């Protein structure tokens, strides 16, 4: 039995344009602060159903708190090309690029997507506020940068049924929308930008619309999605999905160079597994010289996926008469990794993957221990006592279904 209610507790946090709906649906009343907004962690009393909806049905997530900027003007493309590591000059209208950006020492500040919306008009998403850095670097260029977070409402529709649901509601079929491309569609009388992007590593879309349309869009999706099992989904399930997809999270898997207290805490994209995004052929972008050095000399650290082996873990627990204790949710506590007596790295986030039936984690490893298959020892607390158990470096993403990038 449940009582239908909106969340009415007093809060200093902002609420998104979907709050009227999400607050009624959030049975657990569990919220987290996300960029100053109240954001649902789990709608149900546990997050399992939401997790499985990402992988087997369709999950609907309110991602409005994501920082968004509209960048326009005759130098918008040049500006972004100098700002980020990827080559924005080849980003066609309708294309989306995932990219990090760095300070001039080549240390990563943030990562997000660049959406090429129309001629000289882009949207940039980021994990943290970037307005100061953007405007500072726009000096001397014909660029207008504006906050989009308060203007645009955004939803993520993720999971194998997401395409079918959108085909039900959109004015035109989106079957041919390719991975990391976007399109303008009408859903009823609402204009919506649909990008085939997401943070789950599954087939999925993100929807962007002026915030006045938020509730209509939500209702339309929930209505059309019902037969497909559409499920409002919170951040707990998302966190597991993004670990399975090996997508890093700022302030969890790395610290922004903008606020790292010491240099040691800063990372180059080459250390975060993002070397593929660094286009050294580009003549000039912020951090280029330093990144060229990183590329030439190699870096001391590498971000990798590790899998904690089952048998040794089971043995550890069996000794004290318990079955293996597995994390029900994603964790984000730095956990030491050893080779013999030497600490050779640390895991920054991990979870039990219910789908893969594997215990996985994202980890920073010294380069000499980062090769696929390298065995490492993972620290685990067994009934209050610190032990180590076998893990090994594996290929990422842990989960990478073909449907993520294919078109029917």
């Amino acid at each position, binding site marked *: 039995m449940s009582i239908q209610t909106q969340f009415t507790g007093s809060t200093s946090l902002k609420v998104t344009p979907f709050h009227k709906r999400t607050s009624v649906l959030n049975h657990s009343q569990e919220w987290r602060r996300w960029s100053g907004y109240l954001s649902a962690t789990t709608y149900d009393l546990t997050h399992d159903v939401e997790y499985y909806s990402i992988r087997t049905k369709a999950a609907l997530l309110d991602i409005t708190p994501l920082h968004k900027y509209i960048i326009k003007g005759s*130098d918008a493309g040049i500006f972004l090309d*100098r700002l980020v590591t990827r080559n924005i000059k080849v980003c066609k209208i309708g294309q989306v690029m995932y990219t990090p950006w760095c*300070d*001039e020492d080549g240390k990563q500040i943030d990562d997000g997507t660049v959406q090429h919306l129309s001629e000289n008009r882009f949207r940039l998403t980021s994990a943290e506020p970037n307005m100061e*850095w953007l405007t*500072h*670097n726009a*000096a*001397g*260029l014909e660029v207008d940068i504006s906050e989009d977070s308060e203007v645009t409402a955004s939803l993520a529709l993720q999971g194998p049924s997401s395409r079918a649901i959108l085909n039900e509601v959109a004015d035109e079929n989106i079957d041919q929308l390719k991975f990391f491309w976007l399109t303008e569609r009408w859903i009823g009388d609402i204009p919506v930008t649909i990008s085939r992007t997401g943070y789950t590593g599954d087939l999925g879309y993100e929807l962007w619309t002026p915030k006045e349309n938020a509730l209509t869009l939500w209702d339309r999706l929930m209505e059309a999605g019902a037969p497909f099992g559409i499920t409002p989904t919170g951040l707990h399930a998302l966190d597991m999905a993004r670990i399975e997809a090996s997508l890093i999270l700022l302030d969890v898997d790395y610290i922004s160079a903008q606020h790292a207290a010491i240099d040691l805490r800063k990372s180059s994209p080459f250390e975060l597994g993002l070397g593929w995004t660094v286009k050294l052929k580009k003549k000039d972008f*912020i951090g280029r010289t330093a990144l060229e050095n990183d590329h030439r000399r190699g870096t001391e650290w590498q971000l990798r996926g590790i899998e904690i082996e089952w048998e040794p873990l089971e043995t550890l627990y069996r000794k004290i008469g318990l079955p293996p204790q597995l994390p029900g949710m994603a964790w984000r506590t730095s956990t030491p990794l050893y080779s013999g007596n030497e600490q050779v790295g640390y895991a920054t986030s991990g979870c039990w993957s219910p789908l893969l039936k594997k215990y996985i984690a994202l980890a920073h490893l010294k380069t000499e221990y980062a090769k696929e298959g390298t065995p490492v020892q993972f620290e685990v607390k067994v009934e209050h006592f610190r032990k180590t158990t076998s893990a090994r470096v594996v290929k990422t993403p842990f989960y990478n279904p073909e449907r993520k990038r294919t078109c029917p």
Partner: protein
Amino acid sequence: MKSFDTIVIGGGVNGLITAAFLGKAGNKVVLLEKGKSVGGLASTEQFAPGFHCNSVFDSVPWINSVLSTDLDLESHGFRFDDADTALSTPGTEGKTLSISPDTEATSRSIAQFSDRDAEKWPGFCEKISMLTDFLEPLYGITPPPIPELDLTSLLSMKPMIKPVRKHGRQNLVELLRILPMTMLELLDEWFESEPLRGTVAASGIRHLNQGPMAVGTVFNFLHHHVGSESICPVRFVSGGTGQLTDALQSAAETAGVEVRTKAEVSSVMLQNRQATGITLADGEQLTAGAVVSALDPQSTFHLVGTQNLTPRFRRRVKNIKFRGATARVHFGLKSLPQFDSLNEKALKSIVSISPSLSYVESSSDAAKYGQVSQEPWIEFSLPSLRESSFAPLGKHVLSATVQYVPYHLRGMDNATARQKLRNSVVAVLETHALGIADLIEHEQMLTPNDLESKFGLTEGNINHGEMMLDQFFFMRPTIDTAQYSTPIKNLYLCGPGTHPGGGLHGMNGLNAAQLVLKGN
């Protein structure tokens, strides 16, 4: 495309000096000046039909002797006019304080106000001279690169050994004690009479946005005394300040420098973060192995294009403090005004309206709130008494330097500030020369906003960046450009925005020329 060894941007004192020295060293040099003649802040110009003035500087307290000897400026028509130079301050009861290079005469003048101060005056002069002895060799050094300090750059500090030997370590410590002090604190250690305290204090706030109760004003005071032999030094250039830059132009041209006027640079050309030349406003392009800018750092990097700077450097340039608060006023007068307590000898030199230290401090209060001082510190001169050619027969010119008129105004536009400036100056002058307002035939008011547009000075700062301790030596203009070179290869700075700072002493241009020659 014409090609040169070096292009110098800006035809003020420092630009001319750099060009002249590079020309003398055999470089093929072109100097580009936006205005219709060279001179910049050291110009003499006609501001109304028949009326001439020294645009910004009436007095040139110090020029490095290397300049006059190496460039043989005298043969190019430059000489000092040191007759009857004194700084006068009208005090109370018709008494006038007169500070001149003659220490005894100055002591006698001070005695009108305080016997104790008169006794102390020679000691004060010695002390200041000792302190500036430390700074003088420092001014000829290219600052060492900090934090990448190495042995070679430490060795460049060698000239500092001499003053330390001469005055001892204790006096070096004394310099370090005094340098960050306020003028109030320094003067509290020495003097009691208000006209003296006000006038000496005013010498420490020249071209600053702060008053004499602000930290670091002693540094600015010492800066204005480096190279001079007396306190509150006054020196005139015979024929007007513009004669100095005219002589420098002549010396530069003799050294083979091509001086082009009405040549405004619109951008510095870059190739792979290297300066390769410049583009003029009319579209002409000139190439060169080195481009040296005498403009202030912000104006210089504006020509490079701020988008071409790295984020960190762009931030450093942006953070340079300018905040001009000095205005210039020129009046064309129908006849010689009658001052209550100032004779013609005083008027043909420099007069400071600084009856007390708190008067000067109070005038600085307005600047904090973006307002124009109602009772400003005014330093004025009647140059037409010295140079009869400055005004038609029987008529006169009064030129004043006025603080404080802030660049960043609150609640008023520049036209209003200009009007307020005029009202304040006329009101103060009227208290000393009744009826002067009626003598004004012509006038020119230059607020910091006007100085910015007229001379291309960022925020109207005459020193191309405030002379404060955090913008001194290896931090001037920024920590990575203090060696006259810049992150843009082959682009150099030589203006007062560099070490050792503002004034017409020419050390910036001289140091920069030496560095460019080394770089070549």
